[in-house]
């Protein structure tokens, strides 16, 4: 339910602009919903490494009453603090990246801080599969495993989408789970659109003795059948007519008014 509510809000955020990072919200909706379900507000840390995904966190926060509808309406507009790519002004999250591939280091830093202060908290980070092309991700992965930052859990949104096309046509990043395992992490593949499975995996990772990477297999068009098959997953065009159909499709599933 929360995942589809995120999708509906994301459609409505992108619609006034005519295009935007809707694909990121569609692929990560269940992961973000699961994070907001499992993370303890005010205690656990939440990091969004790929700043373009911040739309999904904004949508979830609005759905949960943490962000006002007025603030959400400013998404991506001139003069608004609710920017389309995450910045230091972005609300809701403990950290959001903008330049890709840097958020896992921040997450490892938060986990290290909690350990240094003997603070009982978890750190959750969303990382995209395209970001795995950046070397810094693997520097952070080695650091986290070496320092046994077991309270760190990463969701890798494996949507196989980057600007230039499917990730696997640009760089071979597979086998992803085996890479994380070889770097000293607990890792598993799972269906990234199965919210219940994601919640179970996130809860289960709390007891791990190593940091955990959940490789969430997803699609940038999930939950929106009306999108053309050739939509650019990184930056979906959403003209008014398509936006209306998209909102109606999701609203019907939620049993809400699509207008």
């Amino acid at each position: 339910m929360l995942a589809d509510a995120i999708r509906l809000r994301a459609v409505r955020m992108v619609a006034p602009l005519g295009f935007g990072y809707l694909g990121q919200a569609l692929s990560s909706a269940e992961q973000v919903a699961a994070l907001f379900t499992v993370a303890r507000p005010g205690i656990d840390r939440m990091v969004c490494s790929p700043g373009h995904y911040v739309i999904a966190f904004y949508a979830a926060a609005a759905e949960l009453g943490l962000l006002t509808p007025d603030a959400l309406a400013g998404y991506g507009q001139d003069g608004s603090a609710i920017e389309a790519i995450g910045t230091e002004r972005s609300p809701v999250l403990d950290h959001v990246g903008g330049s890709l591939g840097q958020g896992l280091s921040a997450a490892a830093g938060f986990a290290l801080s909690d350990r240094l202060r003997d603070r009982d908290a978890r750190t959750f980070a969303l990382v995209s599969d395209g970001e795995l092309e950046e070397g810094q991700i693997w520097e952070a992965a080695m650091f986290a495993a070496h320092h046994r930052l077991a309270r760190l859990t990463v969701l890798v949104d494996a949507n196989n989408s980057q600007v230039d096309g499917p990730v696997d046509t640009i760089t071979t990043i597979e086998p992803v789970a085996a890479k994380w395992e070889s770097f000293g992490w607990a890792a598993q593949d799972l269906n990234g659109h199965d919210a219940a499975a994601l919640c179970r995996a996130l809860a289960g990772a709390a007891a791990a003795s190593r940091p955990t990477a959940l490789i969430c297999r997803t699609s940038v068009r999930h939950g929106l059948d009306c999108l053309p098959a050739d939509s650019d997953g990184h930056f979906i065009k959403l003209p008014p007519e398509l936006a209306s159909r998209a909102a109606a499709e999701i609203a019907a599933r939620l049993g809400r008014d699509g207008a």
Partner: protein
Amino acid sequence: MPEPPGELREPPYPVEVKPYGRALVELARSREEIVCLSGDLTRQCEIDLFQAEFPGRFVHCGMAEANMIGIAGALARRGHVPFVHTFGVFATRRPLDQIVNAVAYPRLPVRIIGFMPGLSSPGGPSHQAIDDVALMRAIPGMTVIDVADAVETRQVVAAIADLPGPAYVRLKRGEIPVIFGEHHRLSLDRAQRLTDGRDVALVASGMMLAPALAAAAALRGRGVTTAVVNVPVIAPLDAETVLAAARQCHVVITAENHLTTGGLGSAVAEALAEAGLGRPLRRIGVDGTFGEGARTWPYLFGKYGLSAQAIADAAWRALGRPGPPPAAAIPASPGGEYAPV
């Protein structure tokens, strides 16, 4: 000498798309040593055209800029001429150490092309290359170029092809204005005085040339004459041309789509000071702050003072003229909307 009559168009300027991409393809037809590297921004950097024409010389490097620069350095050592493409932020900040050690110190002919300069990206501080000129200008032997229009963009490709050392070129993305006539010639050695004036020497680069010309026109209407100097090559700076304009004017204004520190304004300040030429200097640019995300870049140019009005105001006040400055504006830019990506 001023540009010959007819070589400077009047606004509103027509626009072109992909002048860089077409010029690179054109040059690569006769230059087999040219290879094209892309950091996951192929269409945005206009090199989808190169990829279609020369797939064998096009290399996807993915989102891995440090590695891309290292690969380019080694290709250059083996006689290739790599043109490396991504946005200006990712082309300079991320792989700075690799540019220094794998390219600049060995003085290799790698051409680094950074799109979406300064606040022309609405994508926020992470996507706005407001410091790329400063970073590249600090590297020994790096040629640093910020061209003003589609005519210069078309010419810069061939102009840098045979430079013995590395070059960094920042290019606007999307719709590119055509400011110059077809006979305009880009020079890597000489800056160009475009208009004659005795009051204000106005030194501009890149996307700030159009506002500079508009400001000059507005000032002329109020009896202030302006020597507009176009500086496409910020390093090495053609100090002689800048100083010649400054000498015959009362004040010097620089205008750049970049921080006022480390770029064109700093280079001109250094030239004036070293020549012992005392002139009040006002630097128009991003003034000691980061930008922000927005929907459109014209909004950001207005908010952060990168406008014809900001230039006219600065000139008027620097001259100590009484009363309000003249109104200055360039006709609204064509509605080219694009992703901050």
